[in-house]
């Protein structure tokens, strides 16, 4: 099968500092794929490269069989890539429902009709409600997004990503800052999404969650690929234990 996403020797540096250094991996359609590593390993930079926030300095990225490095964010979204943000970025001054409606507007934003077609479309509203139901936010659909607690905002961002990411969804630490039962709910949501035919790439700090959820994992350290494989292989990889779990054991209590 063709991979849905492939990174081929991708590098990105900021002012001489190599944030991502010749990273390569490929993700098959229908996988739940994990991107792990200690703080500052370059995971979020990888996400930003994949989703087109900035272009890589070197290397190429293929999404769904097309070379996409250098394409801007809005083009990537149009190709069917949805994402969340580690530091949540809701549209704070509008309601939860409007946030999702905005994302469903993806089919309109690249046409001139965006000027004269109303966004008060009934079909789109009910579709947005469906998405909110999937993430369990129907009860607060009409609340202003800026007033919600972090857990709800993370789910809101997932709903937004679902509206856009018909092929691949990137989750950037969507589980961090959540309570135990929220994590369980979200885990089953991620599996549901995958079972519905989408691919998921996630960054996760919580090892237990990552090991339980992901089918394959890439571990980054200092911008480089340290190891990749199944959770079992990662767990028993001495380099990973040394560089990541070792450090983590000491400092991750916080």
């Amino acid at each position: 099968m063709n991979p849905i996403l492939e990174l081929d020797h991708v590098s990105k540096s900021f002012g001489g500092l190599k944030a991502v250094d010749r990273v390569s991996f490929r993700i098959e359609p229908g996988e739940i794929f994990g991107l792990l590593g200690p703080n500052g390993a370059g995971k979020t930079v990888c996400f930003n490269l994949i989703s087109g926030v900035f272009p890589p300095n070197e290397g190429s990225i293929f999404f769904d069989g097309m070379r996409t490095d250098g394409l801007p964010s809005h083009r990537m979204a149009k190709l069917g890539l949805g994402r969340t943000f580690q530091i949540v970025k809701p549209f704070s001054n509008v309601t939860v429902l409007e946030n999702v409606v905005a994302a469903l507007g993806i089919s309109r934003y690249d046409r001139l009709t965006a000027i004269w077609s109303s966004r008060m479309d009934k079909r789109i509203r009910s579709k947005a409600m469906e998405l909110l139901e999937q993430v369990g936010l129907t009860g607060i659909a009409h609340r202003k997004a800026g007033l919600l607690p972090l857990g709800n905002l993370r789910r809101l961002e997932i709903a937004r990503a679902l509206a856009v990411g018909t092929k691949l969804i990137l989750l950037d630490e969507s589980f961090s800052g959540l309570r135990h039962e929220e994590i369980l709910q979200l885990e089953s949501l991620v599996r549901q999404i995958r079972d519905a035919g989408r691919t998921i790439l996630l960054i996760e700090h919580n090892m237990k969650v990552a090991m339980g959820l992901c089918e394959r994992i890439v571990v980054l350290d200092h911008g480089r690929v340290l190891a990749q494989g199944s959770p079992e292989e990662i767990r028993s990889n001495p380099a990973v234990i040394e560089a990541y779990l070792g450090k983590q054991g000491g400092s991750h209590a916080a």
Partner: protein
Amino acid sequence: MSGYLLTLATIMAINAIAACGLNVIVGFAGQISLGHAAFFGIGAYAAALLATKAGMSFWAALPLVVLISGMIGLLLGLPSLRVREDFLAITTIGINFIVEAVFNNFEWFGGALGIGGIPRIVFFGIKLRNEGFLLLVLTALVLVMFLCWWLTRCWAGMACFALREEETAAASIGISPVRFKLLAFVIGTAMAGLAGAFYAYFMRFIAASDFSFPISVSMLSMVVLGGIGTLWGPVLGAVILGILPEVFRPLIDYRILFYTILLLMMIRFQPGGLLGETSAVRRLFNRWIPVPAP
């Protein structure tokens, strides 16, 4: 209505149209423009030149004027919007100084003497003056406000709001930042051009200094005072800043000081403006006109 009140009301309505345009740029799309008077001036000069040099009637010239202002907005906005946000503030100030200087120094634009002899608007054989002119400007204001209201309801407006709130997130859901910032900029400058055309026909004599940087600041003050991003804010701001000089006529020497301190206090303690959220006026407003439950 007395002639004096009519003049005041007409100027306020013209300013309100321009302020609504600025609000589309600043309030709806979150872009800063400090050169709005330049586009107001481009509209006024285009209208004046089309009337005096090309001999066109107001009605034939009006769509052209709006088009010209919008196109120049597109041309000047494109390079500025590509760069960082702070640059836009500075480039728009620059555009204001350049445009004023061009009007003031080129013979073709009347130079320091300005352009006079602009004819009256003829509507079905009747020369519009006083009430007639005011009615025409108010009709235009209603149309402009309808367009602004529509922007809050259509997808393009949604895209602008999303960009204002969180640009990265907006791009991640398929909104092209450059395209929609530019759209807001062009709509805003076209509205400024429309207001400028009315200004030219109302004054019947225009000069470069009518469109200098302080005018841009006062237009921005209208938007800030009334409420950035609200529908009625710019109109309220234009009315208040239109009435204030009359109320404070005895204190004419302290007028500018008073204005600027008012603007400072407003932006410092109530950046959302009179009609902004959390403002006292807004709460009062809501008590009179309850918001329908969603």
